C-alpha cells in the first residue's frame, strides 16, 4: 500500500481493493467510482501496450514496408481497440499526468500520489506533457501477475540481482566483479573484445554493453571510430538526472503525526505528495537549477518487511527524493556542503510528517545525482540511462535510427535501459537484445 500523509489527515491506499475504495470515498464519492473504472481501463491499456515492449523498433528514416512490418500487428490491434481505448492510448502517449488524471479525479492527494509514478526518474513535472506515458510505464511492471503491484523484494532490490545472477551462472555464464572495463577493443572497425583495468584483454565474438550510450560510445570507444554525426547524436542525448537518495538508519520506528502508532500503513510506501501544486513546485525549483525546497519523497522502511536488514529493534528508511538536478544553476557543482544541505532539506521535509524522526537518526547516507553517477556509472545520475521523454523513446532510443540494439560498430551491441523500452526493473531490454542477437547469428550461419 501507499500512504500519503497530510497536515491533519492522510490518504491510504492498500492492495485490498475494497478498502481502498472506501478510503477514497471518504474524500470523494465521484473519485471512488472513477477509481474503479480507471483501474479497469488502465489494466486493459497495459494489456494492449505490453506487446510494444517486445517489438524491435524500426528505423523511421527507412520507409520500406519490410522495416515497418513489426508494427503491422500493432497497428491492426490498435484498429481493433474500442474507440475509448484508442483515445486513452493517445492521451497516455501525449498528455501530462496531471491533465490525464484531472479528467478522472478531484482529490488532490490522490492525483498527486498517482502522478508520482509519472515523474519518477524523469526531469519533468506532473504538468509536463508526456508524463502520462511514464505513468503507464510504471504500470507495466508485472510482479506476481498483478499489474501495478510494486514489490518490495526480500533482501532489498539486491535480491533480484542475485537471483538473475544465479540463473546466469547456472546456464554457464561467468561473472567477474571488480573488473572495470577501460575500453572496447576494435579491429578493422569491428568490436573484438574489451580491455580491463590492469591491462588484461578479453576477446569476444560480440560485446554487449548494458552501459548507457554516453559511456559506451564516448568514454569506452577509441576516438575517430564513429561517424561525427552519430557522435553528435549521442552527445545531445539527454540524461539530466533529477533524483537523489537519502538512506537513514533509525534506532526506533518513527511515527506519523497524522496517523500515530505503528501499523500496517508504515509497511508500504509513504508518499510525500500532498497536491499537484506541491509536486509541480518541486519541479519548478529543479527547472531553474536548485534542488526542491520541499521535494517529493517516496519513502519505505524495508526493515518492516525484512527485519534482517538491521539489528533487532532498529530500522532503515530508504527515501527516493525528487528533484535534485544534476546540473545546478550558475554552473555550481555538487559539493559536500551542498549535498549536506540537500540531506537536511529532505530530513526537514520528513520531520513535517514524522515529528520525532530527527531524534531517531543514528546514521545517514545522502546521494546527490552526482554521487549516483560516481557510484553506479549512470551518466548524470539518470536511473533510466537517459530521459524518458517522447523524443527519446522507441525509434529514437538510444540514438535515432539505431533502436535495434545494434550499433554502427559491428559486433558491439546495446542491451541496457538506454535501449527500447527504457528504464525500470523489467529486464525487457536485455531479453530483446539477446533475442535480436540470436536471430542475427542464426541468419549469419545460414548465409555462411
Amino acid at each position, binding site marked *: 500500500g501507499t500512504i500519503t500523509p497530510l497536515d491533519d489527515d492522510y490518504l491510504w491506499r492498500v492492495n485490498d481493493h475494497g478498502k481502498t475504495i472506501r478510503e477514497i470515498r471518504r474524500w470523494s464519492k465521484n473519485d471512488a467510482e472513477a477509481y474503479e473504472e480507471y483501474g479497469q481501463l488502465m489494466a486493459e491499456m497495459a494489456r494492449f501496450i505490453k506487446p510494444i515492449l517486445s517489438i524491435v523498433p524500426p528505423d523511421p528514416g527507412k520507409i520500406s514496408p519490410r522495416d515497418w512490418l513489426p508494427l503491422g500487428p500493432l497497428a491492426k490491434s*490498435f484498429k481493433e481497440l474500442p474507440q*475509448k481505448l484508442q*483515445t486513452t492510448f493517445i492521451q497516455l*502517449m501525449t498528455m501530462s499526468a496531471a491533465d490525464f488524471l484531472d479528467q478522472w479525479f478531484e482529490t488532490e492527494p490522490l492525483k498527486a500520489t498517482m502522478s508520482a509514478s509519472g515523474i519518477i526518474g524523469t526531469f519533468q513535472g506532473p504538468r509536463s506533457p508526456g508524463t502520462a506515458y511514464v505513468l503507464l510505464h510504471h504500470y507495466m511492471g508485472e510482479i506476481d501477475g498483478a499489474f501495478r503491484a510494486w514489490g518490495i523484494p526480500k533482501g532489498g532490490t539486491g535480491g533480484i540481482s542475485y537471483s538473475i545472477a544465479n540463473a546466469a551462472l547456472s546456464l554457464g555464464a561467468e561473472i567477474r566483479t571488480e573488473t572495470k572495463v577501460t575500453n572496447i577493443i576494435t579491429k578493422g572497425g569491428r568490436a573484438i573484445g574489451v580491455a580491463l583495468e590492469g591491462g588484461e584483454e578479453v576477446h569476444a565474438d560480440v560485446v554487449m554493453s548494458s552501459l548507457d550510450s554516453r559511456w559506451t560510445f564516448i568514454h569506452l570507444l577509441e576516438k575517430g571510430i564513429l561517424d561525427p554525426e552519430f557522435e553528435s547524436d549521442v552527445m545531445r542525448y539527454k540524461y539530466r538526472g533529477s533524483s537523489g537518495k537519502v538512506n537513514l538508519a533509525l534506532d526506533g520506528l518513527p511515527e506519523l503525526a497524522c496517523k500515530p502508532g505503528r501499523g500496517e500503513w508504515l509497511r508500504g510506501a509513504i508518499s510525500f505528495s500532498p497536491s499537484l501544486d506541491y509536486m509541480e513546485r518541486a519541479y519548478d525549483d529543479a527547472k531553474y537549477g536548485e534542488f526542491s525546497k520541499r521535494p517529493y519523497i517516496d519513502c519505505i522502511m524495508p526493515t518492516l518487511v525484512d527485519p534482517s536488514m538491521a539489528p533487532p529493534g532498529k530500522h532503515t528508511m530508504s527515501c527516493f527524493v525528487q528533484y535534485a538536478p544534476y546540473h545546478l544553476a550558475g554552473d555550481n557543482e555538487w559539493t559536500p556542503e551542498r549535498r549536506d544541505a540537500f540531506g537536511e532539506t529532505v530530513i526537514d521535509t520528513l520531520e513535517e510528517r514524522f515529528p520525532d524522526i530527527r531524534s531517531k537518526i543514528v546514521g545517514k547516507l545522502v546521494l546527490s545525482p552526482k554521487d549516483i553517477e560516481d557510484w553506479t556509472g549512470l551518466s548524470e545520475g539518470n536511473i533510466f540511462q537517459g530521459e524518458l521523454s517522447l523524443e527519446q523513446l522507441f525509434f529514437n532510443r538510444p540514438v535515432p*535510427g539505431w533502436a535495434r540494439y545494434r550499433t554502427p560498430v559491428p559486433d558491439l551491441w546495446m542491451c541496457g535501459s538506454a535501449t527500447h523500452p527504457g528504464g525500470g526493473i523489467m529486464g525487457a531490454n536485455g531479453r530483446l537484445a539477446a533475442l535480436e542477437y540470436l536471430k542475427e547469428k542464426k541468419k549469419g550461419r545460414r548465409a555462411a
Partner: protein
Amino acid sequence: MAKPQIVVMGAGHNGLIVAAYLAKAGHKVTVLERSSEAGGILRNTEIAPGFTAPGIGHTVGRLRESVIRDLKLMQHGLELLTPDVRMFAPQPDGSAVTFWGEAERTASEIRARNPKDADAYLAFDKKVRVIASFLAYINVATPPDAKSPSLSDAIMGLKLGKAFKDIGAVAGRETIRSLPMAVADLVQEIFDDEALRGPLSTRGVKFTATGPWAAGTAAVFLNDSAGNDGGAPGEATFAKGGSGALAAALVKAAESYGVTIRTGAEVTEIRTTNGRVVGVKLADGSQIDTKAVVTAADPKRTLNLCDPVELGPHMVWRANNIRTPGATAKVNLALSGLPTFNGADDVDRLKGRIVIGTSIDHVEKAKDAVKYGHLAEEPWLEATIPTLVDPSLAPEGKHVMSVLAEGAPRHLRDSTWDAERDRLGDVTVKTLERFAPGLGELIEAREVITTEDFETEYGLSGGHVYHAEPGLDQFFAWRPLAGEARYKLVFDGLYLAGSGAHPGGGVTGGPGSNAARAILGDLD
C-alpha cells in the same frame, strides 16, 4: 434539385472561408455571427478616436496562398504588407537580436555576438524549413480515419509517405525526433546565446498555456513555420488597414458568392434527432431548419450547444475535457510618438514583431504563473507597431502598439479579471519600459482585453485563441478529439471548420478550407 441550405456558425476567418468555398461550389450558405460585427479575432478596435488596433490577431502572414487565390481576396481589397524584419528581440543588457526575413542577414548580425551561433542559425533555419515543408503537406491533409481507412486515405497516406521520403532519411529521423520535443531543447541544443534561445522559444508557446520546457512545443514552433515562408523567425505580415481589413475582404469574397451574413445572431442550440442535425435555434427564439451546420466556434462551445442526451454521457465527458487553458491577453496602446527601443538603431528593426522573451527561463517563468492561477509578474510579450508599415491606422505622427501578453491565465485563483485588468496593463507596460525607456509617457490611451474578455467577447472557451490547446494530445488525427478529426463532428450534418480542427489555430484558413473540401465531398 436545389442544394440544401447550410448554416455556418461564426464569422471569424475560418467561418467566412468555409462559407465562401461552400457558396462558390453552389450551396446556399448563411453565416450566423453572435457579435455585431464579422471578423472574430481579426476585428479591429478603436483604442481612441483615430487609433485603430487589431483586437487579437495582429499579423496575418500565415494565411494560405491558395485561400487568397481561390477567394480572390486581393480583388476584394486585401493588401499585404511585409517588412524585411521578422522579429526584433531586445535584451536586458541593452543589446538586441534582429531576425530578418533573410537568414544570411540575421546570421551576419549574430556573428558579432557569437560566430558559432551565426553558423548554427543558418543550419537551424534550413532544418526548420525542411521539416516545415513536410508539415505543410500534413496541414493540407484531412487526418486519416483510424477505424476504416478509405481509398482516399490510402492515397493521402502514400502522398505523405512520398513527401516524407523526399526529405531524406536524416531529415526524416530529425522530423520524428523534433516534433514531440520541448522547444527549449530544440533551440538549446543548437544555440549558446540566451538572446537567441529566448525569442526563438517563444514561437513554440504563443497562445499556449505551457512554457518552452513542455514536450510538444517544438511541434507548435515548426507548425507555425509551415505553409508560407516562415523559416526560423516566423512570419511578420500585416494587412493594410489592420487585421480587420482581411476580415472585410473575406466578407466581400463570401458575399460575392452569395453568402448571407447575419450579425447579432447567436446560436443557442444545435438541434439534432437520432444522431442527425435538423437545425439551429437562435437567441431571439427563432429557428432555422437545416441538415448541415458548420461550426467555426470552438469544439467545446459547439458541443455544449448540442443536446447532452443525444451526445451521451461519454461524449459529454470528452467534450468538457477538451483542454482550453487560455493564457494570453491583449494590451493595445495609442502612442503620441514612436517609442525608442534599446538596441534599435534603425526604425526598420521595429517594423515586424517585437518579442520580449529574453531567455528560456523568462518565457518559462511567465507560463509558470499560469499553472498556479496568477498573472505573471513579467509576462513575455509579442508587440507590433502596425503604424510603422501602415500610418493610416493613427493620426499623423502618432502610433499604435498592439501587445500580446503571455502569462495571463483565464481563471485567477485569488482575484478576478475585473480587479486585475489595470494591473495587467501596468505589468505589460512596465515590462515593455525595461526595453523601451520612456514608453509610458507616450501612452495616450490604453485598451486592455483580458483572457476573460476573450471568452465573453470573442466566444473563445477558456479564452483560448487557438480554440483548443495545441498540445500533442490535441493534434492532427486527434484534434479536437480522437475519432472526430475529419471535420465531421459527432453528428451527421455537423462539421467543425474552426481552429479546433486540424491543422489548428492561427490565421491560416487551413481548418476552414480543409473543412470545405471534406463537407463538399460529403454533400455532393
